[in-house]
């Protein structure tokens, strides 16, 4: 297929017609910057083929804002030496016209014809979608989708396969795939993917097991049932035998005999017990008799003992009485010593009292004299004190007032001096014997007077001169002087003195008297601190005490003799007395104890003699002798009885021993048990028989074996069905394997041509790599050296390259099958590095020898060395407009 020219008009930005003519059979490189209209061109080609002319889903073709537009595409191409010309317009004028070698088609017919030629489907309605695109979807690569090949291959699958079938010339079995599906489905009903039973098949397996278990249970119960039946048979026999033979009867008879023998032995044993009791009694009374005899014999020994005791008591008494004399002497001596010591002590006490009196009298005399002296002094001080007090009374004056007086006088003096200074001075020098009168007073010779007041100077003879001192100060000084003079006279009058000097003298005398008074009071206090009266009474008391002691001294006996001087002191005397007293007490105690001992010994002696006498009297009586004789008789009788009983007992004991009562008792027990056991066994049999019968009746009613047979039948049915399914499963498995195997072999044969083309291109890019085509003709496993993986796992760039290679291989395949191939690549391989791009260029150049390729790009520099002249879309637009 060779596209020769393409014209479009009123499509998107191509409002004006654009003609792309003179297209080459190999590569056509069309370039232009972004938005120059490359994609619109591609879209126009796709719309021309894929979209129905009457489609309402091609609004995108309309130039912007042009509601009246009629988007139109015109295509001319050649295929198999026939020329095809297509004119298709949309929207406002919906038309499709196709002319093939002069034959015209239009509308749907034209569209179907094109679809059949290129191998795609038209949509029933609406826009054409990916799934409709078929072969062109694989060969026309839109921008940025070069790497996504799976879906494109899927949608082109049927076309590809039919092309392959043409090539290989083999019938791929009509409906073989459906058969496989059917077999798969049938197998799927029985087996899981991994070949395990499922569904009914699995259920049968389980049911069989369940049934087998149930049968096993039933078998077990049947076995039990049969065992029980056997047991019942044996037991019935045993029971009947026992019922006939009554083995327990013999045991009961034996038991009765043994019991009889035992009763006889028991009688003997009772007699034996009675005799033993009698023997015991005899033995007891014998013991008592012997005890009595013993007692009587012991009385004689006691009498001898008492006689000896009496002797001993007498001797003791004699010894005690002998000790009385020396003890009495010792007491007397001790008392004499004690009396002497008492007298010495008395003397020592008297001496001591005398000495103490002498000392007291001397002390009291001294005290009496001292008090008398103090009393004298106190009287003198009291007298002087009274005098000082009188003096003080006479000169009493107030110190403060004298002070005030002194001050007033000083102020008056100061004021007088000041007034003199300012007073009008009147001096005079009169001729001898002439006088004048001033203010009535006569003045003569020379003198000076200070005048403060209006004065009158009378000059005899002449009359009088009045002098008036001038100035205000003078008047004030004159008034002040008068006031001070007045105050001084008042204060003097108050003190009762004539002058200040007199006041001063009186004050000195007053103060002197006061000091004297204080001094005297202190002196008086030193001799009579508590006053003179107290001192006087102390003095009197001392005197009385002294007198008392003197009388006491006079009352004492006269001074003792000279031995008193050497007599021991009182303390020593007291010690001597204490020792003497202790010795006396000891001696007296010893004597008292001895007296008691004597009394005791005497008492003992009396008692001993009385007891001896009493017993002696008793033993020598006649009653006693009779008692002894009787005892001896009784003893002999008892001894005889005892011997008799012992003989009987021994004899009977032998008799009892011979019959072995212990064994008889064991026999009784044995026979009893035997009878009981046998009867019990029979009862047990009877009970067990009953139990078994009841059990068997119940079990029998269940029809166990019939049940088991039914179950076994069911199991066999299940088993048969299972075997059928098992065989069927195996057969299906085998069939599926075989079918799949054969189909794969066929696919491999079909894949071979495609693989050949793929290998061809791949070897250019990766010399050692392989890319396998799977059964759906999809490029799948990729290997390169040690690398192994799916194509989808490769990098984006590599996937795009593999995608393009695959598409070219499909193109080769289609070409071989005589199908039209047109390859449109919109800005492809933009993710390839220079090395890979170089390889891809070699591949494209190679492919272009067989296929027409439209390559749109905005990077013409990448494709410079492709060996074709690039066509600039911008330039094309210009040409068309100008054309």
């Amino acid at each position, binding site marked *: 297929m060779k596209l020769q020219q393409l014209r479009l008009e009123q499509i998107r930005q191509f409002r004006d017609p654009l003609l792309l003519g003179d297209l080459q059979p190999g590569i056509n490189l069309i370039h232009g910057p972004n938005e120059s209209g490359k994609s619109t061109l591609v879209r126009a080609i796709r719309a021309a083929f894929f979209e129905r002319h009457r489609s309402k889903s091609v609004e995108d073709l309309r130039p912007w804002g042009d509601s009246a537009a009629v988007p139109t595409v015109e295509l001319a191409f050649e295929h198999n030496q026939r020329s095809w010309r297509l004119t298709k317009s949309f929207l406002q004028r919906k038309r499709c016209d196709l002319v093939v070698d002069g034959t015209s088609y239009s509308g749907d017919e034209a569209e179907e014809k094109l679809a059949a030629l290129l191998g795609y489907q038209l949509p029933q309605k609406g826009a054409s979608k990916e799934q409709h695109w078929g072969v062109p979807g694989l060969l026309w690569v839109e921008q940025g989708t070069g790497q996504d090949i799976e879906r494109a291959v899927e949608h082109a699958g049927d076309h590809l396969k039919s092309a392959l079938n043409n090539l290989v010339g*083999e*019938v*791929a*079995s*009509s*409906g*073989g795939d*459906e*058969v496989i599906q*059917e*077999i798969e489905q*049938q197998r799927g009903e029985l087996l899981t993917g991994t070949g395990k039973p499922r569904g009914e098949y699995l259920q049968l397996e389980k049911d069989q097991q369940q049934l087998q278990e149930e049968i096993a249970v039933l078998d077990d119960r*049947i076995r039990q*049932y*049969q065992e*029980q*039946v*056997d047991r*019942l*048979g044996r*037991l*019935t026999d045993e029971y009947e035998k026992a019922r006939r033979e009554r083995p327990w009867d013999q045991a009961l008879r034996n038991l009765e005999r043994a019991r009889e023998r035992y009763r006889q032995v028991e009688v003997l044993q009772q007699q034996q017990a009675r005799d033993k009791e009698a023997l015991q009694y005899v033995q007891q009374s014998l013991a008592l008799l012997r005890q009595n005899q013993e007692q009587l014999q012991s009385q004689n020994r006691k009498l001898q003992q008492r006689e000896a005791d009496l002797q001993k008591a007498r001797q003791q008494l004699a010894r005690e009485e002998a000790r009385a004399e020396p003890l009495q002497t010792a007491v007397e001596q001790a008392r004499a010593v004690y009396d002497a010591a008492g007298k010495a002590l008395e003397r020592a006490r008297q001496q001591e009292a005398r000495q103490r009196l002498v000392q007291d009298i001397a002390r009291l005399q001294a005290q009496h004299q001292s008090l008398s002296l103090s009393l004298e002094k106190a009287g003198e001080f009291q007298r002087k004190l009274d005098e000082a007090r009188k003096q003080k009374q006479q000169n009493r004056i107030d110190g403060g007032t004298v002070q005030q007086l002194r001050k007033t006088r000083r102020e008056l003096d100061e004021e007088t001096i000041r007034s003199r200074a300012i007073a009008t001075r009147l001096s005079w020098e009169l001729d001898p014997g002439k006088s004048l009168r001033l203010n009535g007073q006569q003045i003569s010779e020379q003198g000076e007077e200070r005048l403060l007041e209006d004065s009158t100077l009378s000059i005899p003879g002449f009359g009088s001169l009045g002098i008036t001192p001038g100035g205000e100060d003078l008047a004030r000084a004159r008034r002040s002087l008068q006031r001070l003079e007045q105050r001084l006279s008042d204060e003097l009058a108050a003190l009762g003195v004539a002058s200040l000097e007199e006041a001063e003298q009186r004050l000195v005398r007053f103060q002197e008297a006061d000091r004297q008074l204080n001094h005297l009071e202190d002196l008086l206090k030193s001799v009579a601190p508590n006053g003179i009266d107290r001192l006087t009474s102390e003095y009197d008391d001392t005197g009385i005490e002294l007198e008392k002691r003197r009388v006491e001294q006079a009352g004492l006996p006269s001074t003792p003799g000279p031995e008193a001087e050497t007599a021991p002191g009182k303390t020593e005397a007291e010690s001597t007395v204490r020792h003497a007293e202790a010795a006396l007490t000891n001696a007296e105690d010893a004597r008292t104890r001895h007296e008691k001992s004597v009394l005791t010994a005497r008492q003992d002696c009396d008692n001993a003699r009385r007891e001896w006498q009493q017993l002696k009297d008793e033993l020598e009586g006649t009653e006693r002798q009779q008692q002894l004789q009787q005892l001896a008789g009784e003893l002999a009788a008892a001894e005889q009885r005892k011997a008799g009983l012992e003989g009987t007992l021994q004899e009977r004991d032998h008799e009892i021993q011979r019959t072995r009562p212990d064994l008889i008792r064991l026999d009784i027990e044995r026979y009893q048990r035997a009878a009981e056991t046998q009867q019990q066994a029979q009862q047990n049999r009877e009970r067990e028989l009953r139990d*078994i*019968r009841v059990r*068997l*009746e119940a*079990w*029998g*009613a*269940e*029809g*166990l*074996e*019939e*049940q088991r*047979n*039914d179950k*076994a*039948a*069911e*199991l*066999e*049915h299940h088993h*048969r069905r299972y075997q059928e399914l098992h*065989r*069927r499963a*195996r*057969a*299906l498995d*085998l*069939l599926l394997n*075989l*079918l799949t195997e*054969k*189909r794969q*072999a*066929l696919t491999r044969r079909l894949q071979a041509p495609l693989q050949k083309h793929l290998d061809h291109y791949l070897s250019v890019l990766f010399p050692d790599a392989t890319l396998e085509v799977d059964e759906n003709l999809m490029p799948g496993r990729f290997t390169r050296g040690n690398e192994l993986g799916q194509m989808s796992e490769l990098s984006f760039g590599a996937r795009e390259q593999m995608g393009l290679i695959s598409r070219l291989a499909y193109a080769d395949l289609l070409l071989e099958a005589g199908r039209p191939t047109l390859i449109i690549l919109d800005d492809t391989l933009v993710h390839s590095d220079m090395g890979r791009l170089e390889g891809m260029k070699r591949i494209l150049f190679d492919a272009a020898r067989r296929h027409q390729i439209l390559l749109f790009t905005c990077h013409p520099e990448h494709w410079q060395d492709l060996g074709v002249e690039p066509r600039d879309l911008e330039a094309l637009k210009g040409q068309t407009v100008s054309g």
Partner: protein
Amino acid sequence: MAGLAQRAFGNGIVPVPSARGPDLNRDAITIKIAREVNRLPRFLHTADWQMGRSFSRFEAEDSAALTEARFEVIERLARLALEENCDAILVAGDVFDAQTVSDRTIRRVFNATRAFAGPWVMLPGNHDAALAESVWSRARRLNAVPDNVHLALEPGLTVLSDQGLAILSAPLTQRHTYRDLTEPFDALETPPDLLRIGLAHGSVEGVLPEEVDATNPIAPDRAERANLDYLALGDWHGTKQINPRTWYSGTPEPERFRNNDAGYGLIVDIEGPGGLPAVTLHETARYRWYQWRETLAVPSDLDGLLERIEGLRESSVLDIRLEGSITLADDQRLTEALSVAEARFRCIACDRTRLQLTPTEDDIASIQADGYLGEVIEELRARQEGDRAETARDALALLAELLRNRSEVAR
């Protein structure tokens, strides 16, 4: 049938053909009227009813029918005795197949005897031995045993004076015994004017095939030694004469493919004590059991087989095992014929696992096995020679069927 009868009765005893098939008592009333009052004793000998047995190898429906037939045959025996003016019916053991059959089975068995009001003597066999607790004691507890049915649960004599019969019984009181239970017959006295009829269950020594159990032995000359007029035996399921006075009656209704001489009741006439018994066989079976082993080699073999199937009476139980080879078309023909037969017969089983499928060119064309499907068919056909032949055969049959269905749908 004819061949069968000859094989079974090669000893010269010819069964009385039963023109009416299993339905024996249509004219019972006329026969009853013809009965004489003072005539020689006549009795019916039967055995091995095996009641309570189930037929596991068949589908539930068939199994039920076969079980039902066993009850029916008791009724049939009763009517036969009535029609034939028998004085008594002797059942020589294995009335029941097991001790613990259901109560219902027990009741039904005794109910089925009603038609014949004369005395029945039933002997315990090895399947229903008179153990301490047995199906018999259960039957008695259930009050299921009619008065006219005598249970010979203990060795000894059952005197049927009115019928002129003294029955010497040797019941099994254990499941198995290794001594001859009929030995006491030698010493057992009977009233002189009555027939001495022995009733026992076991294997007559040295007569039956080796495979039969050596348990429960019976001396072959017991009838002679015990001066019996007739010894009625059970245990062997086919009708078999041991000597003129000793017979196995066989089971009245067959229940397996072996022992095909089964399905009869024996009517015995003896002309007084010491007289030789005259034994006549009366067919009682409802179902006949056939087991065929055929080899198919050429297409006409199949034709022959299908003819034989067609020739069988409807109440048949048929078991076929085929060997050899068959084309796909013939295989389908066989399938269809079996399908028809299934609807006709009580039961039919056909084992084709050893029958190879050999598709012809026509076969393959007719099922449109083109492309790799053809390869698969060829492969499977070849594999039928290998070690997993059965699976290959099944697979081939499956594929052929699938393809046939598809091509039929296509048409």
